[in-house]
């Protein structure tokens, strides 16, 4: 558990993640208040990475549930291994025969089999999916529900129920209550509006593209081989490209990729030729590409000199 917001910030930093004051505050509050965190923001600003880092610095194992359209309770919570159950009953047919051999009547035989219920309905035949694993875990965990907006609203309602009391009922086994309340991080790319209930329940964190100073810090941290001057130029150029009206503006992960590729190419400074040949690291759509290429001299104008 964290003692202060500063501690959170420092520990994220030690784990090579630059957390703003705002991010650290929300993480601190979530840990203190036992609330799920809902993170929204454009793709590639480090939403998923935040959860991973959180698991790292708190040395809690990370359980990840990727959402997609058509995800249902069965795939999220648990599944019965019907096939295995069926196989066992077939293999054990003789034993079952023995068991009921000396039963005087049919009802007696049924009772005898019913007495063995536990053998058939046990954890042996249950395969836990992410949600149940988080609930069953022996130690506290970090549960990452990734891209919740991809799942259907019904699933969201179900998730809300699980998140509010951390217990699930498996009809065959009874109610299972979590031993440790996991820290829950949900991420969303805002493909659709999430339900009010879920938003109410969560602490909300909006991560936007970082300010130039933060982005510079991130690049310095993740690509230490790059010279400071060049890093500054990279940040300025990315900032200008982001300001254009693109279909998908470059995210942090893309500007990192770009920085890495510049290091590999042994670049000393940004020039038109170099930028044009490496632009695909940064901009992923044909139309965007053309647009940036058209305005390349503007992007390169008054960058900090390398």
């Amino acid at each position, binding site marked *: 558990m964290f003692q202060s*917001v500063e501690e959170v910030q420092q520990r994220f930093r030690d784990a090579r993640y630059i957390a703003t*004051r*705002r991010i650290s*505050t*929300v993480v*601190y*509050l979530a840990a*203190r*208040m036992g*609330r799920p965190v*809902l993170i*929204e923001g454009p793709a590639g600003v480090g939403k998923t990475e935040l959860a991973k880092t959180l698991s790292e610095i708190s040395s809690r194992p990370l359980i990840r549930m990727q959402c997609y359209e058509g995800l249902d309770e069965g795939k999220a919570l648990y599944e019965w291994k*019907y*096939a295995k159950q*069926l196989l066992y009953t*077939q293999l054990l047919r003789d034993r079952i025969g023995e068991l009921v051999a000396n039963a005087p009547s049919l009802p007696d035989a049924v009772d005898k089999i019913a007495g063995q219920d536990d053998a058939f309905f046990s954890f042996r035949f249950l395969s836990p999916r992410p949600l149940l694993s988080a609930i069953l875990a022996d130690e506290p965990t970090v549960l990452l529900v990734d891209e919740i907006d991809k799942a*259907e*609203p*019904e699933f969201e309602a179900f998730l809300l129920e699980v998140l509010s009391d951390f217990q699930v009922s498996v009809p065959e086994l009874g109610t299972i209550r979590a031993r440790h309340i996991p820290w829950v991080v949900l991420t969303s790319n*805002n493909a*659709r*509006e999430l339900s*009010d209930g879920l*938003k*109410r329940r*969560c*602490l*909300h*964190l*909006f991560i936007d593209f970082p300010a130039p100073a933060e982005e510079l810090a991130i690049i310095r941290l993740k690509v230490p081989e790059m010279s400071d001057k060049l890093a500054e130029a990279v940040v300025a150029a990315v900032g200008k490209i982001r300001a254009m009206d693109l279909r998908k503006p470059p995210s942090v992960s893309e500007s990192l990729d770009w920085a890495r590729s510049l290091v590999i190419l042994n670049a000393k400074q940004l020039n038109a030729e170099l930028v044009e040949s490496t632009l695909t690291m940064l901009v992923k759509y044909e139309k965007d590409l053309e647009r940036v290429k058209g305005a390349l001299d503007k992007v390169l104008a008054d960058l900090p000199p390398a």
Partner: protein
Amino acid sequence: MEERILEFIGDLRRAEVRISPSEALDALGATSEIGLEDRETFKAALASTLVKEARDAPTFERIFNLYFLDLEALGEGLQKALGPEDPKMQEMLEQLANEENLDLDDMTELLLRGQGSEMEMAIRSGSQNAGLERLMYFLQVGYFSRRISDQFDWSAMERDLEKIMQMLEAKGLDPGQLARIRNYMELRLEAFRRMIRQHVERELERRAWRQGEKLTREVLADKPLFALSPDEVAQMKTVVARLARKIKDALALRQRQEQRGRIDARRTIRKSLQYGGVPMEVFLRRRHREKPKLITICDVSDSVRNASRFMLQLVWSLQECFSRVQSYVFVSEIAEVSQAFATLPVERAIEWALKGAPVDFHCRSDFGYAFNRFVQTELDTLDRRTTVMILGDARNNYNDPQAWALRMIRERVRGIIWLNPEGQWGWGIGDSVMPLYAPHCNFIRECRTIAQLGEAVDSLVHQWWRRGR
């Protein structure tokens, strides 16, 4: 502080940020975890518990700044004025206070070593006694600042300061140091006075903003559309966008809800192989529901232009909820503008429909002629899945209404919806031919204001398209 936060939440609610009681409780819980020391952290705690939509963030930012003084900025100014020697002096004064066991006034204590937040709390309680809630006009700022500062015993403070100075002199400090200390304390006093005035000014701004906001929303929503000024039109755009979002979510939900259907034999049998031929899991064939088609016909003559603008914006935003949206505009000649809708961003599409479409904008509107032309050219494209939505005041300038054309359309389509931006009392009076058209429409609403437009579209979504019409 709790009171202040609750008041803050009240104002957020008034600005249409939806905050539930449990969220308000969360905010209180979070701020008590965080404390008040750091403004940014405090703000982050409030934002994460109260603001759940990105679109509410600017509102939050604004009201937060009105409510919670930027003490740090204020402190920085003070720091600059004091120069680099300040901490030393602070230490010395504190030492003095501890050693000599001075009997000082509470306010002097606060001035000597109080944090900004404590000073603000003192001002708040002072302003309550001074009746700040009666503040209404800018001219009253000076008066109330004075009233609040009268709450504090300035003479006691002056006395205390004299006492401290004498004591320091007795300790044998040189005149230069003494002057610096006096200067320091006077600056702090000055800063305190400044804080009082700033507090009153913020309060005034907050009130004015609250009033203005309320007025804008209530008045604009109920103001006749034709009377909106260009500025107001711009403001209402966001309202319409919000409306569209709401409808879109409702429609999307409805389309997914359908999960019944006939058994999908192929998938069920394939899955059953896993279980030795026992159909353990049954798959259903999802019934594919066809999205409805929509045709909008908008009158774009001057008299109803604003109404058409909002209507077109709504239609543009809802395009993806329909399998096909065709839009027509007319004054008397009718023209299709669907192309612009599909390719241009909303603003430009609407501008084009209202100004650049190939119709003569200067003649008098003629509904009869427009419907006649529409029937002649487009009748074949109509089918039972299509809904026709007409926006116009049915003021036909005494031309032939040609209601038969509307009837022919009616026979081909799912239904006709007519939204009329004129008050119901005017239908049938003068050159209005609404009563002649009404029998051929399935759904007629008066849409004189944004509020009415919202209601009409809402009931359309909930009744008209409920079963995939």
